[in-house]
């Protein structure tokens, strides 16, 4: 169950998307997110979805794998969909007791849901095709100019590396603790909301203690290897822009132009 969440996970592979420089992928993803907010009609979404599917096809990450990991996120999207659906005023489409669906509500709910789905799949494509370590290296390089105004870029990158690195570890730990408590007859699936929330205590407390233990071990291991922050640190693998990155950059610019142009064509509906 908890292992199925693949958000932020890396899918090993050797596709053109995997080989891109992490910086290209970070900028591309950021650009994609911004573009999703530039879009103002369904044509834009059709184009954005097509581009996304092209990237997925090129990356050779199985679609099933992407969606399986996002099932938990889709619950949140469904929730925002329902909120939008019932909370927006306008022309009434359907009415029952206190529930009212308006034309505007329906349209906004669909619009937001599509935007969120694309946004989440788009950003998970970045983490699926980039090793966490490359991702943070790329981020550190991208943030470097801000170091001049006192931003601790190396520390930020390190914190991100550690956070990403420990997602699977903590999930494994959670899985173990859940099983151990289940072996003692704990039941996490029945009862009302309050009982279910209470039944999480036997998981959360051991997990909390474990994470402190893990953090302490890691800090000790880093100190034992003379870690002293980012200044003067060199890298074994320097990252370089390649031919693929140039192609990607050109495609990104074209895509941006297309998205902006899509604002001016008449809407689908």
């Amino acid at each position, binding site marked *: 169950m908890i292992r199925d969440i693949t958000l932020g996970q890396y*899918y*090993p592979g050797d596709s053109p998307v995997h080989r891109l420089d992490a910086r290209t992928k970070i900028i591309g993803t950021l650009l994609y997110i911004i573009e999703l907010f530039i879009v103002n009609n369904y044509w834009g979404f059709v184009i954005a979805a097509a581009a996304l599917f092209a990237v997925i096809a090129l990356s050779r990450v199985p679609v099933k*794998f992407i969606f399986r990991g996002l099932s938990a996120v889709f619950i949140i999207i469904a929730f925002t969909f329902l909120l939008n659906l019932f909370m927006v005023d306008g022309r009434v489409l359907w009415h029952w007791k206190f529930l009212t669906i308006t034309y505007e509500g329906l349209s906004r709910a669909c619009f937001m849901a599509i935007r969120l789905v694309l946004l989440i799949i788009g950003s998970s494509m970045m983490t699926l095709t980039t090793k966490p370590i490359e991702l943070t290296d790329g981020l550190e390089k991208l943030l470097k100019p801000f170091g001049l105004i006192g931003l601790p870029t190396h520390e930020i990158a390190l914190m991100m590396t550690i956070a990403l690195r420990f997602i699977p570890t903590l999930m494994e730990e959670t899985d*173990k*603790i859940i*099983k*151990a*408590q*289940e*072996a*003692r*007859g*704990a*039941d996490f699936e029945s009862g009302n909301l309050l009982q279910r929330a209470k039944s999480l*205590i*036997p998981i959360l*407390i*051991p997990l909390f*203690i*474990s994470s402190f233990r893990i953090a302490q071990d890691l800090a000790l291991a880093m100190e034992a290897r003379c870690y002293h922050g980012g200044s003067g640190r060199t890298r074994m693998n320097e990252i370089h822009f390649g031919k693929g990155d140039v192609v990607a950059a050109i495609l990104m610019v074209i895509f941006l132009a297309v998205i902006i142009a899509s604002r001016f064509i008449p809407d689908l509906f």
Partner: protein
Amino acid sequence: MSIEVKNLTYIYNPGMPGETRALDGVSFEVHDGEILGIIGHTGSGKSTLLQHLNGLLRPTSGQVFVDGQCITDGKVRLVDIRRKVGLVFQYPEYQLFEETVAKDVAFGPRNTGLEESKIENRVRAALSLVGLDYDEIGESSPFELSGGQKRRVAIAGVLAMRPSVLILDEPTAGLDPAAHREILSMIRTIHESMGIIIIFVSHNMGDIASLSDRVIVMDKAKIAMSGTPQEVFSHDKQLAAMGLDVPPVRSIMMQIAAEIPSIQSNALTTQEAAEDIRRAIPGFEQ
């Protein structure tokens, strides 16, 4: 009480990258009152096997019968199975969470729906079985105890459910020699006073030799060997090929036999070894 495992197969992440066959057609039986030791290299499928015995994992194919009842067809209540088959995980002290030792040990019995009036007695009995005193530590926080004590509290938490089968996954891992000995003698006490089936996994061949009636050797998701400790540990070359050792006493006796051919011994424990040596030296009895 008996356990029967029939043709058990389990595949992790079917159809995904990293698909692994953790168990492949595993079959065995455990009889009433037996102590079964399981050995195998890391990743040979031992822990996966244990998790099938109390329904934490559902097999890809195959069946598990506890006391003649099939627990893998999805018809039994899982709480009943978990009450019957107590499973103590590796490093069980990491699962402690309550404010007091007594409350933590009571967690299991309470989940099985036992009446409050009976719970205290259960907790007292379970703590004394693991060699701890309720009046002394019952009200203290489990996080204040020593490593060995924490582990015993966690084991008491499973014993308090009065299981008919106790499964321990590496019960002595990471303990100092004194705590190690205490856990071993605790397992013996539990077995003698409750008369239950005990199944345990260990990397310590000495523990396996001295505790178990029968040993199962797991290798690459299959059962590679099974038999009495004497039988299993006589195949030292096959064990070495699987990355496993014989008990230290056995390897010392083999070296002695190589130097002094008159001392031939199959001893697995120090007592047996001492007897064999005594017998081999003429006139020693006088």
